[in-house]
């Protein structure tokens, strides 16, 4: 098995997939805690559908590096979704459902009408669920991923105390002069970036799982914001590593394998949480 792995790792695209996979795991887990606690999961869900629409547009217009289209489209949608979700007048969740399902439908429609590659169901499946085999990332995409991940991690570390404050109690934070709207916006933009990064790896339907599962798992066991955050990052990295290794060795689809490992970890954490509480 080790030999087999060493053999696989001699291919650059396997190494690329690993690097991207681990970076995405770290970033999504970092923001996942906030997302879950702020009840912003809907934004993650909505955005992943928007990203799908973005990919469709990129494919149709023949832009090869789809990040150029998908990144700005997703970020703008994040801002829109955030203001819709927190605006009491427009029914928040209805607006979100509208945008996300709309993007999904338009994306599929575009892909059908402008049948670029001749294999629509294959393309759609790949965008929704990630590549079936280990993916084919360009070196430039890997670099972009590294840079964006560094930005996300730095932003999280620098603003950690502010993120905690606006997550725990917006009203109090605002009362003592913290610019809550700015930080909410920042969180939404960071989520958008993570979703675009993760899209290539796990596909747009499965991103939410990557963001939400580690946080929910960690919350079963740990009781402070800091320990939950650290635990969810560690857990996410372990799950991503296991998932990637299984995917490489067994040839299973990368995204769903990682998510499957995340699910197993979640139940394990539920069990541990219950046992430690009784003890």
């Amino acid at each position, binding site marked *: 098995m080790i030999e087999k792995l060493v053999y696989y790792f001699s291919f650059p695209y396997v190494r690329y997939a690993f690097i991207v996979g681990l970076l995405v795991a770290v970033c999504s887990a970092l923001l996942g805690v906030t997302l879950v*606690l*702020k*009840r912003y999961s809907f934004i993650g869900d909505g955005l992943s559908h928007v990203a799908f629409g973005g990919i469709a547009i990129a494919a149709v217009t023949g832009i090869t590096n789809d990040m150029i289209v998908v990144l700005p489209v997703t970020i703008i949608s994040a801002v829109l979704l955030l203001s819709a979700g927190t605006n009491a*007048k427009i029914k928040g969740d209805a607006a979100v459902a509208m945008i996300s399902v709309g993007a999904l439908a338009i994306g599929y429609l575009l892909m059908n009408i402008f049948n670029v590659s001749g294999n629509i169901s294959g393309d759609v499946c790949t965008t929704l669920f990630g590549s079936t085999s280990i993916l084919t990332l360009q070196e430039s995409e890997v670099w972009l991923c590294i840079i964006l991940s560094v930005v996300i991690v730095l932003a999280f570390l*620098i*603003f*950690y*105390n*502010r993120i*905690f*404050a606006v997550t*725990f*109690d917006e*009203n*109090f*934070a*605002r*009362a*003592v*002069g*913290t610019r809550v709207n700015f930080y909410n916006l920042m969180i939404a933009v960071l989520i958008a970036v993570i979703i675009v990064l993760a899209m290539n790896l796990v596909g747009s339907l499965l991103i939410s799982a990557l963001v939400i599962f580690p946080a929910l798992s960690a*919350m079963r066991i*740990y*009781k*402070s*914001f*800091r320990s*939950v955050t650290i635990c969810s990052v560690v857990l996410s990295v372990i799950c991503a590593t296991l998932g990637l290794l299984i995917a490489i060795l067994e040839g299973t689809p990368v995204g769903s394998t990682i998510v499957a490992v995340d699910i197993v970890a979640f139940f394990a954490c539920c069990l541990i949480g219950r046992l430690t509480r009784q003890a």
Partner: protein
Amino acid sequence: MAQLICKDLALGYDGEVIQDKLNFKVEQGDYLCIVGENGSGKSTLMKTILGLTKPMGGEVSFGDELTPKTIGYLPQQTLVQRDFPASVWEIVLSGCQGRGDKRFFYTGEDKALARTNMERMDIWGLKNRCYRELSGGQQQRVLLARALCATKKMLLLDEPVTGLDPKVASELYQVVSDLNRKDHISVIMISHDIQAAVQYAKHILHIGNRNFYGTRDEYVSSTLGKQFIRFEVGEEA
């Protein structure tokens, strides 16, 4: 010079006025209780004082070097907070976020202040405990310690004893009363508990269909006060 003056203040959301013509002021060391029916705009008044909601008219002005940022606020509890994984220490420390503008990390001074206020609230021993696993009374002490990190002068407490059993509630009233008398921190408290309000407060602001502002004694002898006290006490019995 009063610390806080509200002049012809009108409250509301999105152009809709809930309350109009509120006039009152708070001097240093005052203890003002705000009473009134549910939905009469008590919480909105606090948010307007803090600048979280824009006034629909009139003005809020501050004296004695007080600003909205240096008021300690204990919001009405929301459901989100109740299952939030956060340690007591993390929460109290977040009360220091308004001190020092462009800093993103807490200083040793912030941490010392958080510790002092936790000891003041008698919760230093709970430092590493999870907030959601504390009793209701302990949770309110945590939020009170956090509010104290933000202020030296004035506390705004939105229904701090709601949901607590009577013994714990009276302990909390005592804590607040001590802060008011010994440390000369002005207190504005929203309360459903009219008996405690008339027991501890110096002034009463009643908002509802009719408004009243005056000293406690004036309120107790006013027709509005008599009605409301009889009504509330009757409801509890």
